C-alpha cells in the first residue's frame, strides 16, 4: 500500500514555506510569459521552470521512499548540449512533456528507476535513429527482461547535464566516455585503463580505441553472443589491418591476415559466413590477448608474452606443452630466420608443384597433339569420312 503523494509541498518541510510563498507568483507567470515570448507562447520557458527549480535542496520523496531531487543548477543546464544556444534551446517541457504549467499533475506511483527509464523514452522523439539502433542493444534487451539496472539514455549521456559526444564538432574528452561506461562496468574500465590502449587513451592519444570503438554505442551487442564472438576479429582488424595507422606504431598489419590464414581464424571466418549464430570454441583475438587488459607482447604480464604463452594455450588446450606453443607462428609469415622448417616445406612445394605439373602439362600437350593428328590422318584414308567424323571420339570408349 503506497500512498501517492501528488503535491511535493506536503512532504518537504524546510522548503515548504518558501514554496508556498512562490505559488502566487507561479500562477501569474504564464501571463507574463505570454507577453514576452515569441514562437510558442503556450509552452512554459525554462526560466519559468527555474523560478522554482533553481532553488537548491528541492526534493520530493517518492512512493518507494526514494528521494527525487528537484533542484536544477542553471549553470549545468546552460553548459549542456541542450542548453548551450538560447536560440536552439531545448525546453524543460520538451522532455518533461507530461508537465504543463503549475500545479504539476500527480507523480505516478513508480519508483525512481522506473521513472528514469520512462523518461528516457522521450529522447527518441528527437534522436530517432539512436533510439531505433538501441532497440536491439544488450542494454535494451536486459531492461525488457526486467533488469532495470541496465543502462538507458540518461545513464550514459546525463540528463540535465547531457554532454557533447561528437569529437569532430566539439571538444570532447574521449575518457569521459570510458567514465560513462565505468559507472556500471567499473572493473572492466579499470582493466582497460591498465591496457596498452587505455594507457594511451589516458594520455589523450586519439588513435587507440575507447569502449565504444569495439562496443558501438546504441547498437551495443551482447559480448557473450555468438554473433559478437565471430565478429570480434574484424573489430580488431578495423585498426590492426590499417597500414597507415599501424605504421605509426611499428605494428605489423600481417596480424589480421595471418590469423585468418591459420586454423583458428579461417574456422571463425567460415563460421561467420555459414553459421553466424553458432558458438565456436576456436580462439578469437581476445581469447589470447585478453579483451580489456590487452598488453603489448613484450610486457611480462601479457598473456601472449612468450613465457606466458603455454598457460594461455592451456586455457583451451589443457594438455599443451612448451613445444605446442611454437606451433603458432606468432602472426609472422613463414621466413627462413624464424621458421626454417615451415619455409623449407613451402619452398619444396614451390619447386615441386610447377616442375611436376609442368612435366605433366608438356607431356599431355604433346599427347593431345599426336592424338588429334592421328585422328586426322586416319580420316584422310579412303574409308567413309562422315562415319568416322561422328563416331571418331567415341571410337575407343
Amino acid at each position: 500500500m503506497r500512498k501517492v503523494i501528488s503535491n511535493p509541498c506536503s512532504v518537504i518541510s524546510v522548503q515548504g514555506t518558501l514554496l508556498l510563498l512562490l505559488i502566487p507568483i507561479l500562477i501569474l507567470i504564464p501571463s507574463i510569459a505570454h507577453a514576452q515570448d515569441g514562437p510558442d507562447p503556450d509552452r512554459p520557458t525554462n526560466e519559468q521552470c527555474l523560478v522554482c527549480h533553481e532553488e537548491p535542496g528541492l526534493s520530493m520523496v517518492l512512493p518507494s521512499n526514494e528521494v527525487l531531487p528537484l533542484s536544477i543548477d542553471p549553470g549545468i543546464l546552460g553548459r549542456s548540449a541542450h542548453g548551450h544556444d538560447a536560440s536552439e534551446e531545448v525546453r524543460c517541457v520538451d522532455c518533461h512533456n507530461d508537465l504543463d504549467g503549475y500545479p504539476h499533475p500527480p507523480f505516478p506511483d513508480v519508483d525512481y528507476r522506473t521513472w528514469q527509464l520512462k523518461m528516457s523514452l522521450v529522447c527518441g522523439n528527437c534522436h530517432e535513429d539512436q533510439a531505433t539502433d538501441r532497440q536491439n542493444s544488450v542494454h535494451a534487451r536486459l531492461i525488457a527482461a526486467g533488469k532495470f539496472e541496465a543502462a538507458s539514455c540518461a545513464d550514459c549521456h546525463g540528463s540535465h547535464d547531457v554532454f557533447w559526444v561528437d569529437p569532430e564538432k566539439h571538444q570532447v574528452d574521449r575518457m569521459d566516455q570510458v567514465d560513462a561506461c565505468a559507472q556500471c562496468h567499473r572493473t572492466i574500465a579499470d582493466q582497460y585503463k591498465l591496457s596498452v590502449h587505455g594507457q594511451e587513451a589516458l594520455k589523450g592519444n586519439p588513435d587507440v580505441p575507447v569502449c565504444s570503438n569495439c562496443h558501438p554505442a546504441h547498437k551495443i551487442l551482447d559480448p557473450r553472443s555468438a554473433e559478437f564472438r565471430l565478429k570480434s576479429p574484424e573489430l580488431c582488424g578495423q585498426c590492426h589491418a590499417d597500414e597507415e595507422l599501424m605504421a605509426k606504431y611499428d605494428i605489423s598489419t600481417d596480424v589480421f591476415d595471418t590469423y585468418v590464414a591459420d586454423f583458428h581464424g579461417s574456422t571463425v571466418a567460415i563460421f561467420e559466413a555459414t553459421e553466424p549464430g553458432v558458438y565456436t570454441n576456436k580462439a578469437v583475438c581476445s581469447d589470447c590477448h585478453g579483451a580489456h587488459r590487452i598488453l603489448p607482447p613484450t610486457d611480462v604480464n601479457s598473456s601472449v608474452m612468450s613465457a606466458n604463452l603455454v598457460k594461455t594455450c592451456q586455457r583451451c588446450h589443457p594438455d599443451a606443452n612448451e613445444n605446442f606453443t611454437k606451433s603458432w607462428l606468432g602472426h609472422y609469415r613463414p621466413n627462413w630466420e624464424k621458421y626454417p622448417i615451415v619455409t623449407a616445406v613451402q619452398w619444396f612445394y614451390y619447386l615441386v608443384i610447377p616442375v611436376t605439373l609442368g612435366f605433366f602439362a608438356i607431356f599431355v600437350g604433346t599427347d593431345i597433339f599426336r592424338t588429334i593428328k592421328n585422328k586426322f590422318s586416319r580420316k584422310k584414308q579412303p574409308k567413309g569420312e562422315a562415319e568416322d567424323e561422328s563416331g571418331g571420339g567415341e571410337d575407343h570408349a
Partner: protein
Amino acid sequence: MREKMRTIIRFGPIERTEHFLLLLSFTILAITGLVQKFPDNGLSLWIIRLLGGIEYTRTIHHISAIVLILLSIFHVFYVGYKIYVLKRPLSMLPGLKDVRDAIGLFKYNLGLSERPPEMDRYNFGEKIEYWAVVWGTLVMAISGYMLWNPVLTTRIFPGEFIPAAKMAHGYEAILAVLSILIWHAWHVHIKHFNKSIFTGRITLEEMEEEHALELKRIESGEWPPPLPPAQERWRRAVRYLPLAGLVAILLLITTYYYFTEQTAITTLPPAPVEKAYLPARPPGLPTATPAPEMAEEIPKQLVRYLPEPMSISSHPMDDARADCTACHASYSYIDPAPLDHAEYDVTECTTCHQPAKEVSQR
C-alpha cells in the same frame, strides 16, 4: 576389327574394389579439404553449407581419411601377399625401360619417331600415377595425423612441425588434385575412357596401344607367370599371414591413435575474469549534480541494489597491504570504497571482500 574388340581380364575384384574405395575417399577428401584450404571462396562456403557446416565437413574429411588409411594398410599387405606367397613379379617397379618409353613416346608425339614404344603390363604413365598416389598418401597421412593430433605430435617434435604439416598438407593436396585432373583425366577419361578398372576387362585394341609388350607376352604364353605349386603357396602363406597380421594390428592401433587426442576443450574458452556489471554507485541516482548538502543522504536512501562485494583479484593479500584504505579510501582513484563504507573499520574489510580464487592459488 572384331578380333580387336575381344576383351581379356586385366583387374581382379580386389583391385577393382581398392580403386573404387580410393576414388571415393580421394574425391571426398579433396572436396572437404580444398574448401578448408580456400575458406573465403564463395563455392567453398556453398559446399560447407551444403555439408551442414564446417564441423561436419571436418568430420566427413576425417572419416574419409580413416577409410583411405585402412585401404592403404590393406594394399600394402595385399601387395606383400601377391609378391611373397603368389610370387607375382614386381610389375609396378619403375625401371630404365620406363625412362626409355617416356622419351620414346615423347618423340613419337612430336613426330620424331615412327612408332610408339611397346609397353609392359604397367606403362610409365601408370607407374608415375601409382607412385604419386603412394607418395601423396604418405605425406597426407603423416601431415594429417599431425594436424589432427597436434598435442601428441608436439610431445615429440618441435612445435614448428604443425604449421609445416599444414603447409605440406595444403600444397600436397593441390599437387594431387591437379595431377589427377591433368594426368589421370587425360589418360583414362579424355584420350579414351578406359573402363578396365571398373569392369576388370580390357579390349585387345587398348592392349595393343598401351600394353603392346604385355599383349605379346600373353600371346606367347609367357605371361602371366605360373603360380607356385599349392604346397609351396601354403607353406609361404603360413609364414606370411601371421607376421602380416601382427604388423597390421600394430598399424591399426596407430590408426586408432588418430582419434584419441582431445586437442581442445569442447566448450567455449573461459570468459575474462573481470566482472562485467559492478556499478560504482547504485543506478538510478540522479545524473545531474545534486546540491552539496544532499550528497550525504542520497546514497543511504537509494541503496536498493546490493552488488556482490568485489573480490580481491588484482593483488595478493599480504602484510604490506594490510591497510585497505591506504589505496581504497572512498576518495581514492583505485577501486574506491562506496560512501556508505565510511563507518566501517579497516579490519572488517575482508569480512565481505574475500581474495578471489585465482589469487589465493598463486
